[in-house]
C-alpha cells in the first residue's frame, strides 16, 4: 500500500535525523529501542510466522553478544572484520546455536517445544557463570570498539547509526524472507505442519532452519548490544529477557510483520521513561500485557489495522467520536489505576512505614505534585471516581463503535474481508 510506504519512509527519515535532535542520554535509549525491535522481529519469525513459541530466545541473543565481544577482542577491529561488520559474528553464533538447539526443540511441538527452549536457555544461564574462558564467569567479559573506516565509534551517535543500519537491513531481510518460497512455507508450518508432511515436505528440517534463522537475527541483535555496551555477562541469558521479548512481541501483535517492532520499541521506550519515574514499572508492564491479551488479542498492530480499515471505509470524520472517547476512556482509566497503584506503593513502602507513629494520623504522601492524606476520603475517592468515569466512557466508546459498524450497509464486501497474509494476484 502506498500509505504504508510513505509512513515507513517518514519513519526512516525521522530515525536518520533523530541524533541531531535528541540529547545524548536519549540517543542511548534509542539504540536500545532499535535493538529490542530487531530482537522482537527475529523472534516473531519463529513465533508469529512459524508458530513456534520459544521461551528461551534470550539464549541466542546472549550467544550473539558473547561471540561478538570475543571477536571484538580477538580481531581488534582489524583485518576482514572491522568493527561495523562484527555483528556478523553474532549472526554466526546465533545461527549455529540455533541449529543445535533447534534440532532438539523442534522434535516436539506446542507446549513441549516451549519447555525445551526454556530448559536449554536455563541450561546456558546456569552453566555460563562457571565457564570462565567463554563467558567470563559471573563478572562477564568486556572489550573496546576499535576505530574503523575512519570512524572512531567514540560517541553514541556513531553507534546509533551503525545500529540503525544493521537493524534496518535485518528487518528488511526478514521481510523479504516472508515473500520467498521458504518464507511462505513457514506460514504453512504454523497453520498445519501435519499436512505439510503429506504434501512431501521435510517438516523437521524446515522447522530447524526457521529456528536457526530466527536465532541468527537474534544473534545480530545481541551483537549490536555488545557493540553498544562493550560488555556482557551471564545475566543476558536470564529468563526475564526471554519473557520480555515474548511480551513485546505479543503486545505489538504477532500477525502483522511490523507489529513486534512497534511493540518492542514502545515497551522499551516506556520502560526507559517509566523506570525513572516509578518503582512499579514491571507491574505496569504486566498489566499492559494482560489487558492487551484480553481485549486486543491481535495486539497494537491489530488495533491500528482495524482503525485504518474503518478510516478507509468511512473516512476520518466518522470514526473520530468513537476513537476519541476510546482514547479518553483509556486515558482516564489508566490515570485512576496509576493513581491507586502509586498511592498504595507509597503507603506500603518501608520508608513510609518507618515514619508512622502510634496514635497519630498517617502523614501525607506526595503524588502528582500534591499532598494526599491516606486518612482522607478524597485520596481514595479520586481514583475510584476516575475509574468509574473511565469505564463509563469506555462503554460509551464501545457503543459508538458498534453502532458505527452496524450503521452503514456494506458498500464493498471485499474491504470487510480480513486480509489474508501475503499478496495475491
Amino acid at each position, binding site marked *: 500500500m502506498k500509505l504504508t510506504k510513505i509512513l515507513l519512509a517518514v519513519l526512516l527519515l525521522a530515525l536518520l535525523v533523530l541524533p541531531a535532535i535528541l540529547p545524548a542520554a536519549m540517543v542511548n535509549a534509542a539504540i536500545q529501542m532499535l535493538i529490542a525491535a530487531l530482537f522482537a522481529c527475529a523472534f516473531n519469525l519463529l513465533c508469529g510466522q512459524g508458530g513456534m513459541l520459544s521461551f528461551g530466545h534470550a539464549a541466542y541473543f546472549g550467544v550473539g553478544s558473547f561471540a561478538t565481544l570475543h571477536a571484538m577482542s580477538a580481531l581488534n577491529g582489524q583485518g576482514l572484520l572491522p568493527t561495523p561488520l562484527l555483528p556478523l559474528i553474532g549472526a554466526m553464533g546465533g545461527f549455529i546455536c540455533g541449529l543445535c538447539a533447534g534440532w532438539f526443540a523442534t522434535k516436539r511441538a506446542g507446549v513441549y517445544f516451549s519447555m525445551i527452549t526454556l530448559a536449554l536457555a536455563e541450561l546456558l544461564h546456569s552453566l555460563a557463570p562457571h565457564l570462565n574462558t567463554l563467558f567470563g564467569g559471573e563478572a562477564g567479559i568486556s572489550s573496546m570498539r576499535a576505530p574503523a573506516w575512519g570512524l572512531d565509534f567514540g560517541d553514541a551517535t556513531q553507534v546509533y547509526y551503525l545500529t540503525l543500519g544493521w537493524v534496518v537491513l535485518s528487518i528488511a531481510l526478514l521481510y523479504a524472507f516472508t515473500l*520467498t518460497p521458504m518464507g*511462505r512455507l513457514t*506460514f504453512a508450518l504454523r497453520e498445519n505442519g501435519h499436512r*505439510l508432511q503429506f504434501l512431501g515436505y521435510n517438516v523437521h528440517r524446515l522447522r530447524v532452519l526457521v529456528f536457526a534463522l530466527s536465532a541468527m537475527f537474534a544473534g545480530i541483535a545481541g551483537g549490536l548490544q555488545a557493540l553498544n555496551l562493550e560488555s556482557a555477562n551471564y545475566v543476558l541469558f536470564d529468563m526475564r529477557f526471554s519473557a520480555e521479548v515474548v511480551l513485546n512481541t505479543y503486545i505489538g501483535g504477532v500477525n502483522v510483520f511490523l507489529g513486534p517492532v512497534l511493540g518492542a520499541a514502545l515497551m522499551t521506550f516506556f520502560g526507559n521513561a517509566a523506570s525513572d519515574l516509578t518503582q512499579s514499572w514491571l507491574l505496569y508492564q504486566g498489566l499492559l500485557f494482560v489487558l492487551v491479551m484480553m481485549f486486543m488479542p491481535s495486539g497494537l498492530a491489530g488495533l491500528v489495522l482495524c482503525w485504518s480499515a474503518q478510516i478507509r471505509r468511512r473516512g476520518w470524520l466518522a470514526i473520530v467520536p468513537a476513537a476519541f472517547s476510546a482514547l479518553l476512556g483509556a486515558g482516564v482509566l489508566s490515570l485512576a489505576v496509576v493513581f491507586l497503584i502509586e498511592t498504595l506503593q507509597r503507603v506500603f513502602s518501608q520508608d513510609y512505614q518507618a515514619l508512622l507513629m502510634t496514635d497519630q494520623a498517617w502523614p501525607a504522601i506526595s503524588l502528582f505534585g500534591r499532598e494526599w492524606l491516606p486518612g482522607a476520603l478524597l485520596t481514595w475517592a479520586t481514583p475510584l471516581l476516575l475509574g468509574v468515569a473511565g469505564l463509563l466512557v469506555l462503554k460509551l466508546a464501545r457503543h459508538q463503535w458498534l453502532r458505527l459498524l452496524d450503521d452503514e450497509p456494506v458498500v464493498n464486501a471485499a474491504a470487510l*474481508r480480513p486480509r489474508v497474509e*501475503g499478496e495475491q494476484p
Partner: protein
Amino acid sequence: MSDAILQLRDVHKSFGEAHIIRGAQLELRAGERHAVIGPNGAGKSTLFHLISGQLQPSSGQILLGAEAIQGCSPQHINHLGLSRSFQITNIFPGLSVFENLRIAVMRKHRMQYHFWRSVQRYPEVREQTEQLLEQVRLQDKQTVCAAELSYSEQRALEIGMTLACDPRVILLDEPMAGMSHEETDYALNLIREVTQGRSLLIVEHDMDVVFSLCDRISVLVYGEVIATGTPDQIRADRRVQEAYLGEEQCA
C-alpha cells in the same frame, strides 16, 4: 490386465492389545478406481494411515510399484508418487486458497529451501497453481481465507492440494462425508475428472458414489479384506451381504 501399482501383503497393525488390521491383502491396479468399503471401525482409515506413512505396520509388506514403503516417512512416500487427502479436512486454514495450492505445487519444483527469490518470480508455479484452481473450480475464491470456504469447497481445495504433486496414486479418505446431495454430485464429477490417468483408492460411505465411480471394490471387515471385485460381483457376494449390507439393514 494391468499391473498392480499398490499392493498390501499380509499387513497387520496392533495398538497394544487391539489388533486393528489383521492380515489385509489389497491390490490397486494402475489406472483403476478402487473403493474400500466396510462397516464403521473396520480399519479403513487405519489402512490409509499405514499406506501413507502416518502409521507403521506391525508386520507385512506394502509395495508402491516395486518399492517397499512400509515404515517410510510420509514425505518420502509422497515423493514416490502417492498423495492422500484426509477424512477430517486438513488444509492451511489461515492462508488464502491460492496460497494453499501454491504451497502444494511448490514441492514438485523442489523449492523448499529457496530463500533468495520472491515466490512470485516462479512463473511456472503460478501457472500450475492457476491451472489447479481452475480444475477444482475455485478461481473465484482464490484470495479468500481457506477457513472461510464452505465445507464442500474446502473438500475440493483438499483434493486440489492432493493433486498438486502430480501423483501416480491418490488416496481419498471419505471425500464426500458430510456433503449435501448437490455437493456430492459436484464432488463426484470433480473426482472423476481429476483422477483421469491416475490410480485412485477411495474410502467412502456413500454407496451410490462407490458403485458409480469405481471399477473395483474391496470390502474390509475387522481388519481383513473379505472380498474384492467389480461392483456387480460385490453386490452378489454372500459374505459381503452378511457382513456389511446385512448389518446395515439391521441398523
